[in-house]
């Protein structure tokens, strides 16, 4: 099949590469760009493991045709750590045991990341709704909900410290 030259914007960087039109974004991320943080759970659009953020919204990368998303900003789990240090949400998962086998984790985190972008202090119900398309076979979900609480508290403390620093 003829490859197309595409220009994808992933985690703020442009990637030019040649891909076949029948390749999913998930395949291109993992196989061509070696961004293997994003997982393939079912490849059938039903588990949520492959969730990435496209133009601010969580989507299943196993059903997106990569060539169709050249005008979009794509964000994967790899974007959440800065200089090798995990983000607050990821630290929440570590602290609260929100990740066991880890397979659902990148998708969970990306779904929750979009929630926290729009809702700084979500209710328990909002947290559960946000991950209702992400299946976890290990944790039983409670630890994941606690991980969000942990992250929200940490972000708030950090903001208070930041304010105090500015006033000092």
């Amino acid at each position, binding site marked *: 099949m003829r490859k197309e030259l595409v220009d994808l914007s992933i985690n703020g960087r442009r990637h030019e590469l040649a891909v076949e039109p029948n390749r*999913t974004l998930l395949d291109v991320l993992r196989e061509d760009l070696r961004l293997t943080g994003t997982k393939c759970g079912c490849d059938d659009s039903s588990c949520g493991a492959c969730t990435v953020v496209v133009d601010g919204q969580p989507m299943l990368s196993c059903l997106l045709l990569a060539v169709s998303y050249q005008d979009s900003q794509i964000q994967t789990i790899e974007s959440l750590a800065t200089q090798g240090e995990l983000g607050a949400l990821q630290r929440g998962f570590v602290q609260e045991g929100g990740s066991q086998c880890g397979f659902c984790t990148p998708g969970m985190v990306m779904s929750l990341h979009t929630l926290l972008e729009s809702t700084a202090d979500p209710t328990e119900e909002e947290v559960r709704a946000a991950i209702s*398309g992400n299946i976890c076979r290990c944790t039983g979900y409670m630890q994941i909900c606690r991980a969000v609480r942990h992250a929200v508290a940490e972000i708030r403390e950090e903001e208070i410290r930041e304010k105090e620093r500015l006033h000092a």
Partner: protein
Amino acid sequence: MTLPEFTLLRPRNLPEAIDSLDRHRGDIQVIAGGTDLVPSLKQRLFAPRYLLDLKPIRDLRGIRNGHGLTIGAMTTVGAIADSPLVAEKFPVLAAAAAAIASPVLRTTGTLGGNLCLDTRCLWYNQSPFWRASCGFCLKKDGKVCHVAPGGEKCWAVFSGDTAPALLALGAEIEIASPRASRRLPLADFYTGDGMARIKLAGDEILTRVHLPESSAGLRGAYFKYRLRGSIDYPLAGVAVALDLAPDGTCRRGALAVTALNPKPQLIPGAEAALRGSRLSDDLLDRLAELTNRAIKPLSTSASTPDYRRHIARVFVRRAVRQAWQA
């Protein structure tokens, strides 16, 4: 699973899209969000030479308020579920859209795709290996129907959530084609045949959905049966829209169902039963019985026909009561 090979066409506007459909007739399929189509392509239920991507066509997107409401076919079902305007004017549609799949699919799936959804069946939505092991079936590659053997008809079920809500609201749809564009009641769009499910020619595109001003502000409720509380397609869905007089009598109302027949449909006789009535157990019984007569759940899914018939009657009672008392 890999996708079959195809060429992806990305038209910049509607005339270009129609032109491509016309040119590659029989060998081309429209892709909107792809949430239904991509998994089906992976299962080799289709293998068109061309796919026509509707995403680049900007004016197929968005919710326009005017006389009633006009929703572009490429508007995501998530945008409809989250729209304060839809929630205020057409609560039953907001409820149905919010019940679709899961948040990560609602960001991608569109209203047009939801209305044009392929019908579903346990024997059909499977891998080629699975289907081959059962000798395939009428709908794809085979000669018999495993659900109703001996018959010539496919009973695969229409399983979209917004259709019953839109039917209860009296929605119309607009279709673009190389001939003149046409507008028809949504109720006339579905055939009731599990194979040729909708009246849409190969060179046509569903472009818009119109909700009439006369249905704005109707009370509504949507009840959906699915195996899990999220992700799953409906196995029975009931939508109701009601206009109540200040004294609580029903001036006008409609009841529609999905996921129980090869087409979503209004329940015949429900409008007449509702008009001028007050909420009573008698009325709820009558509506449940009218529904019972209109549906034909068969063994097309993981749930049994008996249970789906039962739950449809229960949901009719609950949905009507909830809408009435909301």
